[in-house]
């Protein structure tokens, strides 16, 4: 008997027979308080930096934030936000070595953001690109439009256009709790996370 058939046979013999009803009495909509303020508060708690601007001020805010970057990686859908950035813009195809070079920052958008947990969800859309782009550079600048911010996790997952695309949930800069169970920022992912909230 193959391992597959054997495991399935064992599971069939051992499983309980009674069907189970799943109660879903938890909150699936989480509005209420000012979601943008809550989102900003959570990001700051994770030691991300936050800039707020109106749509007209976006290019200026991004240009100012990135003024000390030696080069910026920007997927096609994010390039318009670099109008006021005078430095070098890196385009695909890029190797991991290009992405890992000192002073390189990456600029992306996101698919949806969660206020209550301070989470950005990237789904490899045109303003986000492949996953390595927001991973290897040491600094990630993410643009979030206030309409993309929802209250809780259930609303955020429901909003994703296609959950089978590669998804990355980002909550603050890379961190670890492995030393004495205290959170410290800055391990393998981007050590600096700047979020520009547009409303």
């Amino acid at each position, binding site marked *: 008997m193959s391992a597959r058939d054997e495991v399935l046979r064992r599971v069939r013999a*051992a499983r309980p027979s009674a069907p189970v009803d799943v*109660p879903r009495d938890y909150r699936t909509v989480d509005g209420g308080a000012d979601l943008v303020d809550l989102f900003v508060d959570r990001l700051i708690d994770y030691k991300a930096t936050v800039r707020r601007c109106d749509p007209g001020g976006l290019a200026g805010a991004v240009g100012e934030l990135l003024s000390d970057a030696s080069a910026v990686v920007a997927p096609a859908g994010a390039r318009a936000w670099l109008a006021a950035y005078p430095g070098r813009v890196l385009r695909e195809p890029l190797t991991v070595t290009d992405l890992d070079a000192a002073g390189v920052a990456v600029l992306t958008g996101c698919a949806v953001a969660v206020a209550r947990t301070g989470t950005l969800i990237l789904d490899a859309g045109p303003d986000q690109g492949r996953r390595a782009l927001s991973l290897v550079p040491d600094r990630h600048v993410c643009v979030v439009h206030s309409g993309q911010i929802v209250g809780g*996790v259930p609303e955020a997952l429901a909003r994703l256009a296609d959950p089978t695309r590669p998804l990355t*949930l980002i909550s603050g800069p*890379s*961190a670890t709790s492995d030393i004495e169970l205290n959170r410290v920022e800055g391990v393998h992912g981007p050590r600096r996370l700047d979020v520009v909230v547009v409303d």
Partner: protein
Amino acid sequence: MSGGHIVARRPFPVAARAELGDAQLRANLRKATHTIRDKRLRVVGEVPDWEALRQAGAAIKDDVLARLPELLEQFEAAATAAGATVHWARDAAEACAVVTGLVRDTGAAEVVKVKSMATQEIGLNEALEAAGIAAVETDLAELIVQLAGDTPSHILVPAIHYNRAQIREIFSRNGLSARTDDPPALAEAARRHLRAKFLSARVGISGANFAVAESGTLVVVESEGNGRMCLTLPETLISVVGIEKILPTFRDLEVFLQLLPRSSTGERMNPYTSLWTGVTPGDGPQTLHIVLVDNGRTETLADSVGRQALRCIRCSACLNVCPVYERVGGHAYGSVYPGPIGAILSPQMSGEGANRTLPYASTLCGACYDACPVRINIPEVLVHLRQTGPHPPAERAAMRALSWAMRDRRRYTAALRAARRGAAPIRLVAGRRGAVRHLPWPLSKWTSTRDAPLPAKQTFREWWAHERA
């Protein structure tokens, strides 16, 4: 029909005694577990629907166990359609053989690993090493344990038993220099050490926190970004997944992505969560293998009381609140699954050897049940395993006699009277304390750790009869 690192070699009391002698270990554990307890309580307290989430989490997992064969087949079909290759393994040895063969086929001599309980459980690193393949642990705590030549002592933070000064020393012995023993400096040293390995790795190996049946999606929840590196940069990814990790639908993640981070690291959300479905052209590994592992899970599933242990999402909240774990640490349990959940999981997955002493590694205080995000009634399973486990002949005989005496009121009264008469001379020795501190062997086994109480001078019934007379 299981194996790997889930069988204790020494009985728990023997192993615990040795660990209790290490004052530094106790101090480190106390500091870490108290830090995380406070954090968890704070972030759980701010979720008004926490109990509803726990109820839903438990029910979803129970539903999975009831429909597991269909869901596994559904997962296999969806993952295969998305470009993954699904393999099955009956036990640890078979899982290791499958993974080793897959790595060999790539020709790689080194793999980078995401922290994974499943690969720890099956002893994958040792199997790869025996095949001449170097397995590099990239999670900070796993790296510390690997560099120290040690074994993990906690599900979430395998190096919880080391403090910062000890970690710096382990690093420097292995050529990783950190300026100070400040955690940021230690994290920086790990970053420098692993950077080149991430960027050049050809094969990544991971586990999965969840596997979604309807879409074939795998989920890894992590903090440092080492997971993202291993899941994104190599050409080939091999994910080792226990069969109980299945969730029916993508929507079910809305429950578990709330329960897990707050229960494990005490954060509103962990820094990074990756979800991937098969292979995506131009993004991430272009070859994906998924190895579904049984290794004792179906034995656990067969027990109607004990199967709730399979709901476990490996958050480790039960370890952090356990008064026994806090004092003896993870190594005393002799399995990669320590603490309260380990005390019910390890003996069910493998009834071998010293594992049958693990259900006694508890005071039955119930703090673990309160903390568990999927409501595993750990005390209930502990008592169940104690009842169904083997007992020494003398204990069985004593319990049979006791049960005979207690089944009949006259026999019970007579037995109490006899006991009181028998205890009268001892009372002279015991004095006013009403308890004996030292009894000769074999009763010394009892009195070496606790007093032996003497029967009361008067029973309640006697007192009642006297008062009403």
